[in-house]
C-alpha cells in the first residue's frame, strides 16, 4: 500500500493553491445563485422570460457540438473520427425510442458502443 501511495499520490499542497480552490468554490456559488442572491423584489421583463426557454437546449448544444466536431480548437477535416459516429449513434437511439423510458441511459450506452470500437480498435 505504501508503495502504491509513493508511486503516484502526494499529500503535498500549496497553501496558496488551496485558498484559490476555496475561492473558486465561492465563485461556483455566486455564479449559480447570481440573480437570486439579493432579496430585492425584481422580475425579468416578459421577453426575457420567453427567451429563457430556449436557453437550456442552446447551452447544451454549445457545449456538445464543439466536443464532437473540433480537435484542439480546430474544426476536424476528416470523417474518420469516432466521436461523429458515437454522437449520431446516441442520437439515433434516442429518437428511435422516441425518448421513452431510459432513453438517455440508452443514448450513453449505444453511443459508447459505437464510439469505443472505432476509437480504441481503429484509432479514429
Amino acid at each position, binding site marked *: 500500500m505504501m508503495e502504491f501511495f509513493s508511486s*503516484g499520490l502526494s499529500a503535498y499542497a500549496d497553501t496558496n493553491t488551496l485558498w484559490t480552490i476555496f475561492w473558486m468554490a465561492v465563485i461556483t456559488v455566486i455564479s449559480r445563485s447570481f*440573480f437570486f442572491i439579493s432579496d430585492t423584489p425584481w422580475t425579468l421583463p416578459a421577453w426575457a422570460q420567453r427567451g429563457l426557454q430556449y436557453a437550456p437546449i442552446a447551452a447544451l448544444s454549445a457545449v456538445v457540438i464543439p466536443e464532437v466536431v473540433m480537435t484542439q480548437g480546430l474544426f476536424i477535416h476528416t470523417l474518420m473520427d469516432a466521436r461523429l459516429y458515437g454522437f449520431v449513434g446516441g442520437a439515433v437511439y434516442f429518437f428511435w425510442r422516441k425518448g421513452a423510458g431510459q432513453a438517455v441511459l440508452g443514448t450513453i*450506452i449505444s453511443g459508447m458502443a459505437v464510439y469505443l470500437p472505432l476509437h480504441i480498435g481503429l484509432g479514429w
Partner: protein
Amino acid sequence: MFPLSANWRRPEFRQGFFDMLSVAPGIAAWGLMTGVAMVKSGMTTLEALAMSLLVFAGSSQLAAIPLLLAGAPMWIILATAFCVNLRFVVFSAHMRPYVMHLPRWQRLVTGYFTADLTYVLFVKRFAKPADSEEGRAGQMAYLAGNGGINWFSWVSFSVLGVVLANFIPTAWGLGFAGVLALTGILCSLATSRLRWVSAGVAGTTAVAAFALPLKLNILVAIAAAVALCLLLEKRPSQAPEVETP
C-alpha cells in the same frame, strides 16, 4: 436542496433522483476523467481532491488548472472561473422565481448544487414556478433529489479519478460518455421547431466563435440562439409555449 431531510420524504425527491439516475453513468465517466486530467496535468493529489470536493464545476476546474500551474495571480484564476461559469448566471435568472420563497442561505446552497443538468432537467419538468406552498415544496424536493445524485456521482467519481489517475489511460476516451449524457438531454429538449433552431444556431455559433477566450463562445452561442428564436416567434405577446409532458 438535498441536505434538508424534509425533502427526502416527498415523492418528488425520488422522481428527481430517478430522472437524473439515467444520466448518472455519463456524469460519472466525465467526473472520472476530470479527476484523471487534474492529476495528469500536474496538480498534487491533495490539491486535486480539494478541487473535486469543493469546486463542483468541471469546465471551470479544467480552465483553472493551467493557470494554477503557471502560477497566475489568484484574481485572474477567479475571474476566469467566473467567466467560464457565466452560463450559470443566465440559468440563475431563470431559476429565481422558483427559489425566492427560500431563506437566503438555502438559496445559496441550492444554487451551489444546481449544475447544468440539474437546471436543465428541473426547468424541463417544471415549466412554471408553483403558485402554492405545497407545489413549491414539491419542486424543491425534485431539485434536491436530482441535484443530490448529480453531485454524488460527479464528486465520487472525480475522487476515484484522482486516486486512480495513473491506472486509467486517457486514450480510451471514456470522457466521451459525458458528452453523450449531454446529447441525450439535448435530444429530450428538442420538443418544438424553435428549440431545434436554438440548438442548431447555438452549436454552429459555439464552433464558429471557439477562438474566444474563457469559453465565452458558449455564452455568445446562447445569446445568439435565444435572440434568433425570439425574433422568429410569430406572436411575441403570447405566453411561453408549454412543453408536452
